[in-house]
């Protein structure tokens, strides 16, 4: 129920956006994410974008994960 998947916005038309994931296109409501821009990834939940994915944070987390994992090698 609380499932949400990252989809990419390809175009915006008012409160709605055309999104794409793995070649599948879907029209979604962006009424909760008026800040979303073309090219952004949003979390899609039951036809609505509930949040914009923060790409910088995503990168940061991956870096952190790599660092943490490398710590385990030291011992």
């Amino acid at each position, binding site marked *: *129920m*609380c*499932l*949400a*998947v*990252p989809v*990419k916005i390809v175009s915006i038309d008012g409160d709605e956006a055309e999104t794409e*994931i*793995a070649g599948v296109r879907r029209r979604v*409501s962006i*009424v*909760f*994410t*008026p800040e979303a821009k073309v090219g952004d*990834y949003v*979390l899609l*939940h*039951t*036809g*609505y974008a*509930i*949040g914009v*994915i*923060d*790409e910088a*944070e*995503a990168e*940061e*987390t*991956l870096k*952190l*994960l*790599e660092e*943490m*994992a*490398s*710590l*385990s*090698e030291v*011992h």
Partner: protein
Amino acid sequence: MKFIDEYQDRKLAQRLARKIAQRSTKTIRLMEFCGGHTHAVLRYGIRQLVPKTIEMRSGPGCPVCVTATVDLDKAIALAHLPGVIVTTFGDMIRVPGSYSSLQKAKAEGADVRIVYSTIDAVEIARANPGRSVIFIGIGFETTAPTIAASVLRAKQEKIQNFYVLSLNKLTPPVMKALLDSGEVKIDGIVCPGHVSVIIGSHPYEFIPRDYGVACAISGFEPLDILLCVDKLVEQIERGEPKVEIAYSRGVKPEGNKRARQLMDDVFEVGEAIWRGIGIVPQSGLKIRGRYKQFDADRAFSVNLKPPKEPKGCRCGDVIRGVATPPECKLFRKVCTPESPVGPCMVSSEGACAAYYQYGATEDLQDF
């Protein structure tokens, strides 16, 4: 797929698990609130990856599972009213009520339709002006804004035949209820990722402050969950419980204000009945008076026989985290996904369904 594949790196997961094992000295129990997390934990073999001293226990985060039998009975009764179309998310349709299910009602001639989105439910109302279209509004804070949006859309577009049966529930109040009951000792909570996209991290702050329980908000990929477990272990080892976000690409401390505004416009907070837990104050969402024309509870009245629970089903105990699915005598023997006794075996987020599907896995699955 971007933002998914890179968080599924198996080698990195194994190294992270080693790091957690090196840091962890205490025997602890973590509760994953969200059914989506329970499924990911089992699917990706997280329980086998982390040290045996860390127990992962499933919590009440499955909206279908926590829907009370009396509310299911009401939804089924509404479906039998003349001129009514009941629209619902797919998971609800097979859940047994006291005497029937939405699926049985459909087989008996009721018009019950599965929708992917509340947008579809509003469209069905628009396409059927002579019928009353009722959406069975289940879900937590992730879904409640989408239900609010459907009410606002119906109002704006003057759709007079759309109604919502609001069974929406809120997560922090039920966490409080579980902690207050003290039935199950929890050292840390894997907080729900997509609920938190909406509510942010602040509503959990009472948990470390008042109960000394660690909190970290997690995403749904295996590396997300391991990062969350690492943060929880760190907090517990240091004896410094707090709320951390281990899903920062999706969750901001302040959440999604716009979604909450719409939700607050349409709903007011009230008590709700949770399966296995009972009435929890301030844990439900009711439609505000100014939108009463869309409130199925006000628009329709149905006579209900007293609810009865399925005999021997321990769904309530599983929801509270008091029992694991294999501890229920019906599990796998009488109760299976093909012939479910309780909702925890029906829903794609139910703990029993997850244990049934992945529970026998001893080794880490390929991911």
